[in-house]
Every structure is written in structure tokens, then in C-alpha cells.
């Protein structure tokens, strides 16, 4: 099941590891992405730390770490071709995998219905 943050990240949680990306809504707001900077594998972040950066033609934006955890994998395909995030933000355009420190914290995030209401 997908979870969402109010800062427009999505998480797909499987076995205590979250695959994290930015939502369709976020990508529409940002426009064409031209640069993505990803965290290093092995780095630990707390919730709301800056974990990645995306830049459109016009401006830079931060991608926040949605929960406490450690980066176990990053999607190098989107640094090579940032337009993947535009074309498939909630699929091939994922950013990183995060081993959650406290998987139960995910309960505090938004579900799909609540996120849809937020961005309606």
C-alpha cells in the first residue's frame, strides 16, 4: 500500500524497506526536471532531513526524508535521465530505498485518499 507525506513524497513499504519518490502532483508543479542529486548509499537520515535535490529549468527543490532510516539503494537511472521522473514519477522515477528505523512510524503518514484530499 502506498503512503504519502504532506511534502509530496510517496512511499511503497515492503518488509521494513520503503521505496521513496515524489508524487505526480509534485512533478506537475515542478515541471521539466533537468537535474537530480541523490543521497549516498549507507547514509542515515531523520524524518524531514534534506535527502535529495531536484532542479527544473527554473528552480531547485529539496526532497525530504519521509521517515527515519538508512539509504540502501538509489535510482541512478534518474540522475542519468531526470526526465524519467516526469514521465513515470510513481514507477521508474523512484528516488531511493530507505531501511526504516521504526516501520510503525509509517502509520502516521497519509494514505492515498487523504493525500488526494490534500492536493485536490
Amino acid at each position, binding site marked *: 500500500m502506498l503512503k504519502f507525506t504532506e511534502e509530496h513524497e510517496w512511499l511503497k513499504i515492503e518488509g521494513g524497506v520503503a521505496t521513496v519518490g515524489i508524487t505526480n502532483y509534485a512533478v506537475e508543479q515542478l515541471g521539466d526536471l533537468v537535474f537530480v542529486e541523490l543521497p549516498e548509499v549507507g547514509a542515515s537520515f531523520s524524518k524531514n532531513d534534506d535527502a535529495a535535490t531536484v532542479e*527544473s*529549468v527554473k528552480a531547485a527543490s529539496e526532497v525530504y526524508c519521509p521517515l527515519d532510516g538508512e539509504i540502501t539503494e538509489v535510482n541512478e537511472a534518474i540522475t542519468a535521465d531526470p526526465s524519467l521522473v516526469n514521465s513515470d514519477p510513481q514507477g521508474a522515477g523512484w528516488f531511493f530505498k530507505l531501511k526504516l528505523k521504526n516501520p510503525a512510524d509509517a502509520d502516521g503518514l497519509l494514505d492515498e485518499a487523504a493525500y488526494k484530499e490534500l492536493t485536490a
Partner: protein
Amino acid sequence: MDDTAALKNTPLHALHLLLGARMVPFAGYDMPVQYPAGVLKEHLQTRAAAGLFDVSHMGQVIVKAKSGKYEDVALALESLVPVDILGLAEGRQRYGFFTDENGGILDDLMIAHLDDHLFVVVNAACKEADVAHMQKHIGDRCDITLLDRALVALQGPRAVDVLAELWADVAAMKFMDVRHCRLHDVSCLVSRSGYSGEDGYEISIPADKAEDVAKRLLEHPDAQPIGLGARDSLRLEAGLCLYGNDIDTTTTPVEAALEWAMQKTRRTGGARAGGFPGAERILRELDNGATRRRVGLKPEGKAPVRGHSKLYADAEGRTEIGEVTSGGFGPSVDGPVAIGYVPVSHASVGTQIYAEVRGKYLPVTVSAMPFITPTYKR
């Protein structure tokens, strides 16, 4: 307070909404930042074919001598700009700037010689101040009228073909020519100019006919509407100054590398040398050079280096030497490009310096501008 409540609309506002534009506040106007195609495609469309921009927020001003003589209005305006206006042929325009007593730049503008008067286009955010400035200094000799007209820019290698559908004579115009014409019975003023680095035209249109003319231009398969986002990346690649970013009252024309806009006749030894605000400093810098210089910057790698990023002489960030004034991603360059100020010791093309981006010091190389090859029809 609702910020959008006080925003003004241009005569093309309804058309922007019809075309699906995303609107943003800009210089007091509700303006299109992009259309559904997006900034990247709009930028490349303008370089490959033709893009139509609404620049109606800019100020269009008629300056006419009370005597009715061109010579009188030309000399009056020369008291405010370091540019040869008297020698400007009828039907021609040139770039210039208002300077202040310290040699700083109050605004940059386009100045056209039409019949017995001047037609001046100034920046949106400065237009009221510019009119007040002219009233104060030359208002006793000249009538200054801010027009209520629309202005569109049609830019790109196919702009000539698009506009020729409405007025065939447009192809005979050279870069910086200005002509009165009728576009489908609408009385317009056309100049072969723009701010994208491409060949193209700016078209001044009566406000109530603007939507009609814009729609006719957009009927052409080579023309697409372009928003402020691509307008900024196009002018950045062209190495052109954005007032408020790259030039302002803290920068002089020589620091800004705008000597080309100051003709010999207004410089030391010229027939009408000086006589404009800040002349002492500007002439001294023209003769001896300034201590810092606006330069093009090409960051290595893919990360854009944005405006206000600090510039350093060394990779450790010990010696700060300047600042980026405009920077972003250049879709035609397919990489980051920037404009900034550095000391003349670091201003030669090829000099490697460093820009601070999110705590890292990224190598950037001082580069010739423009970053693209312009297609002006000189």
C-alpha cells in the same frame, strides 16, 4: 491579503487562460509562466521554429519634443542615456540604459527613432519610475506619454515566415529596423528585434485588437505560445542582461560589459561626450576599465548554479570573489549556464573558478557569451 487581487492583466490574459497557461504574479501582472507543452519544449520550439511571447507588461512610451523637432527630443534623451540618439536613423532602434549620478543603471531600454519622435520600451517593474525620471529631467522640453497598448514578441528562425503571412514586407526588414504596418487592418508597429538570441520581431498592437492579431499568428503551424520560464532560459543562453538580476543601480555599464551600447560620439573625445548622469565614472571606466566584470560561466557537470550563488577563486571556498546573478539550465546548450560578476583578474575566458552550491564548491569556467549562436539578420 490575496496577492492575486491587486495583479493587473494584459490584453492577452483571456487568451493565456484559453491556451491552458499556468499563471504567476510577475512585475505586478498575472502572467503565463508556461503553457501545457512545458518550459523545455517551449524553449526548444523557439530555437527551432517560432515562439509567441506576451510582453505587454513592459512600458511603451512616446517621447516627443514640445518643439516637434527630432533633434530636440534626441538631445533631451541623450542627457539621460550614454547612447547616440541624435545619430539614430529614422526607422532604426538601439539598446540603451538610464544611468544614475553614481554611474549605476536605473533601467535598460530600447529606443526607436520614428518620424519626429522617439518610441521607447522599458521594463515593467521600472516603467512608472522611468516615466517620472524623464518627466523630472526633460519634461520641460518633451511630452512623455505611457501608451496603453499590447506588445508581443515573435521569436525564432521561422518568425519571419509566420509574420509574413500577415505582412509580406517584414522579410525586407533588417535587425533593429522599425516599421509602421497594418496586420489584417490592425495598425501595428513592428521592430525586428527581441531578447531570445534568435531572429524575430516585437509587435506593438492596439490593446483591443491584440487577441485577434495573436490568434492569427498562432494559427501558423510553426508558432506556439511561450511563457516566462522559457523567456528567461532563452535570454540567459543569449547572454542578455535581466534588469534587477544582472544589472541594477549597483552595476555600471562597463562592469556589465555593455560598452558596445555606448557609441564613440558619447565617449571621451567624441562630439557629444558625456552629459549623462554618472558620466564622470562611466567615461573613466570606458578609458581605464572597471575593477570587476560581468562574465559568462559554464559549470562543469550537470548541476545548475543559480543566481546569488557565491563565486570563489579556490576549490576550498577560502577566497570569495563574486556572485552569480543569473543561472540555470540551458536547454539548447543541454547543460547549466550562468552569468556573474568577478574581478577583472578572473574575467578572462577559460579561467577556472568555483561556485558554492549546497555547501559544495563546483568548478565553473569563465566563458564567452552568448552560449548559443545568435541568428540576428544584420
